[in-house]
């Protein structure tokens, strides 16, 4: 088990990531096991800032040779920027990138043994299929041994591929992607799927140490995408090289990857195998992003006991503080649903399982192999998946077994800002002046302070001119009886608000705060020192 500290914006948070070494699904069984577990790519404290916006924030991780690793996250989370830094198209603002223990941070892309498959293929329109694939081969120089005639010593020299060699390699690559006989075709006459195959062939023909794929299937239709997913997995298996794949499609990531690195706001949220991430999401963001989930707020009353929705449940998690506020995730397929008959307990149930909730079905949709239903139990509306369908309005009982409950630490429990007092009774928050209660004139203008506001004490208004500061809605987490929304403020800060209203992503809001609810205390040095980040092994 590896203990990792994540730095979330404005707040240092310790997060446990359970990474089991050497228990990884093997990407290519045939590869020599001696080489198998070494790090091919290592990213150390990499930060990338574009025009004062931090896109990648002090990120550290490493990738094992031969793995199929996916960077997964919503658009704008920094995953493509991270990939472009590995490819060499962007230089990190700080930090280093290592390839096979060699620092490649400042090495230009054409000198890196890494090739990229681009999102929009980037095929050369003036060259035909054959010439597109042969492009890199014609430039590549390979070492060969030559025996000096005079001295008899072997000298290593560089030579280019011969025409015959290029022809063989291109033909082989075309065969690998299933495009035999297309070599003379003009690239503009190919379909999207065929163009993508050419792009893949062009990259793998050079036998790179790492193949980077930047949302390569994004432009294809669903059926073609599924086919290409299988094919990419086969190519990965046959070549045995490391694949780094970028996508925002969680299903794609879960299907294809050996390992997934989930990112948001330029920070790694969780890294691990698809199963690990699905079963044990590290926080509400991951749980929300990967798969359907019910995310609730609760309180740990003791080890293996959690209180939510007014009941105490058994669970399999421990190690939290007593009465620590936590998020918990319950996957829809883990909830047991049965018909509720007044007064009697379903006879099929085992003795030790109770029906925890009773409620009525509010919607029911058949999804092919299962039904997805929403069940309103009063305090929360659960999403439930079951092979047995119930009609809308049916009275049902829900039972939540202990293994279905996964407890996560809260990403943030309070909005906290390090800021300054701007006048006798105003304080700067999110770039605007807010009134606060300054009892006994405890604080003076210019004082550095910490301001804390509870999630429920912030009010969002429809118009940003009704409040001192404005912002845009980011992620929204449905917590049953209320929504927890993330607000990106105009000065690139972030805060969380609990609200009854439903907001959409990118909605423009005003941020209003009751002066009495702002807790202010003096800022003490060293309170916010960034902790040394331990590298995550992917």
């Amino acid at each position, binding site marked *: 088990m590896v203990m990792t500290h994540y730095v979330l914006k404005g707040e240092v948070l310790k997060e446990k990531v359970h990474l089991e070494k050497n228990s990884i699904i093997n990407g290519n069984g045939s590869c020599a096991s001696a080489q198998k577990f070494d790090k091919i790519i290592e990213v150390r404290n990499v930060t990338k800032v574009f025009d004062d916006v931090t896109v990648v924030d002090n990120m550290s991780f490493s990738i094992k040779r031969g793995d199929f690793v996916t960077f997964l996250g919503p658009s704008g989370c920094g995953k493509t920027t991270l990939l472009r830094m590995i*490819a*060499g*198209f962007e230089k990190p603002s700080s930090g280093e990138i290592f390839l096979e223990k060699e620092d490649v941070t400042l090495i*230009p*892309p*054409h000198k890196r043994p*890494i*090739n*990229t498959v*681009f*999102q*929009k293929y*980037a*095929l*050369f*329109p*003036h060259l035909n299929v054959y010439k597109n694939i042969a*492009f*890199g081969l014609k*430039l*590549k120089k390979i070492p060969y041994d030559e025996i000096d005639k005079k001295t008899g010593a072997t000298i290593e020299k560089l030579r280019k591929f011969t025409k015959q060699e290029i022809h063989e390699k291109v033909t082989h690559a075309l065969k690998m992607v299933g495009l035999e006989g297309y070599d003379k075709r003009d690239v503009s006459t190919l379909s999207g799927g065929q163009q993508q195959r050419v792009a893949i062939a*062009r*990259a793998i023909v*050079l036998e790179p140490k790492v193949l980077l794929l930047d949302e390569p299937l994004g432009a294809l239709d669903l059926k073609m995408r599924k086919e290409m997913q299988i094919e990419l997995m086969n190519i990965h298996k046959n070549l045995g090289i490391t694949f780094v794949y970028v996508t925002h499609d969680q299903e794609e990531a879960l299907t294809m990857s050996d390992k997934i690195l989930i990112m948001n706001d330029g920070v790694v949220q969780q890294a691990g195998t698809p199963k690990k991430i699905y079963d044990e999401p590290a926080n509400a963001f991951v749980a929300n992003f990967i798969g359907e989930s019910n995310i609730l707020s609760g309180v740990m009353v003791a080890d293996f006991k959690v209180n939510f929705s007014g009941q105490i449940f058994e669970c399999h998690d421990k190690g939290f503080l007593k009465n620590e506020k936590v998020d918990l995730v319950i996957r829809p397929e883990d909830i047991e649903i049965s018909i509720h008959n007044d007064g009697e307990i379903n006879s099929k149930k085992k003795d030790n399982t109770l029906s925890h909730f009773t409620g009525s079905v509010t919607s029911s949709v058949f999804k092919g192999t299962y039904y997805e239903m929403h069940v309103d139990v009063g305090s929360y509306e659960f999403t439930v998946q079951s092979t047995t369908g119930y009609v809308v309005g049916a009275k049902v009982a829900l039972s939540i077994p202990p293994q279905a409950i996964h407890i996560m630490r809260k990403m943030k429990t309070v909005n906290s800002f390090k800021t300054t007092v701007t006048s006798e009774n105003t304080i700067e928050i999110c770039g605007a002046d807010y009134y606060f209660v300054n009892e006994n004139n405890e604080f003076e203008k210019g004082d550095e302070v910490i301001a804390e506001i509870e999630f429920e004490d912030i009010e969002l208004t429809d118009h940003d001119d009704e409040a001192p500061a404005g912002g845009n809605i980011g992620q929204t987490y449905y917590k049953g009886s209320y929504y927890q929304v993330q607000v990106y403020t105009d000065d690139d800060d972030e805060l969380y608000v609990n609200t009854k209203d439903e907001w959409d992503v990118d909605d423009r809001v005003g941020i209003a705060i009751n002066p009495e609810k702002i807790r202010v205390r003096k800022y003490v040095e060293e309170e916010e020192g960034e902790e040394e980040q331990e590298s995550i092994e992917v």
Partner: protein
Amino acid sequence: MQSQPKWRLLLRKIFRFQRGYFVLPYLFLAAIFIIVPLIILFVQAFMSFEGDFTFDNFRSFSEVGGWSLLWRSVQIAGLTTLICLLIAYPVALILSSKNLKVPIIIIMFFIVPMLINVVLRTFALREIFIWIERLVRESRGEIFHLSDNFKIVTALILDYFPFMLLPIYTILRTQDRSLSEAASDLGASKLRVFIKIVLPLSLSGIISGIMMVFLPAISNFAVPYVVMEFFNADYQLLGNLIWDQFSSRATYNVGAAYGLILLLLVATSVAIITKFTKGKAKGGISF
């Protein structure tokens, strides 16, 4: 119900509004100002002053040294085009780079001179040449003349430079940057990326630029006329020879014949360029 007479339905069918009708104004203009004059030019070229059919007009072309003038015009126009291209391409390359924050201001810097009337600009240039010549004469104490070729080429470059810059800039600006990235990813150095990707994909812009500079330059008569201090029998371009037939001499038939020679020559060279670059110039306007 009132039924419409059949003839009206028929008329409506014939004169039903079609998208193609929008092209009519242009066809009308083209007929009046291009096709009819071309026919007149063609007929006049084979007509003597008296109105008889003759080839004399063409024969006189070599007698007045037309071929050497034509060769001279090709050289001058070619040199102008080449220098324009050599200056404009790097400028366009720099302007189209994504790192440049305010390319439009610099583009304006090249375009604003075009807002000044071409005659005025050329006159001003002539004055500058005279001023330079005088300055050198006064400092050195001997008679100094700038070369006539230098004057004409300089004036033509200043006139036509934007026509070379803009098409190349446009094509480079719209070029997909991921293509350069892909090439460099596949192992091409910056120079190779330029030679193998950027340059070939901007070929159509270069061809547009060449045509827009070379064609007006080869038939130009006003620029040499003005910078050569109005008339210099020894140094005329083909344009001046043709112009003379219509202005001072009023030998229209001869002028028409010379004009026809120039026209055929230019049309042939355009056809050759088009055929030569067909299929190669992709990703932009092509002829």
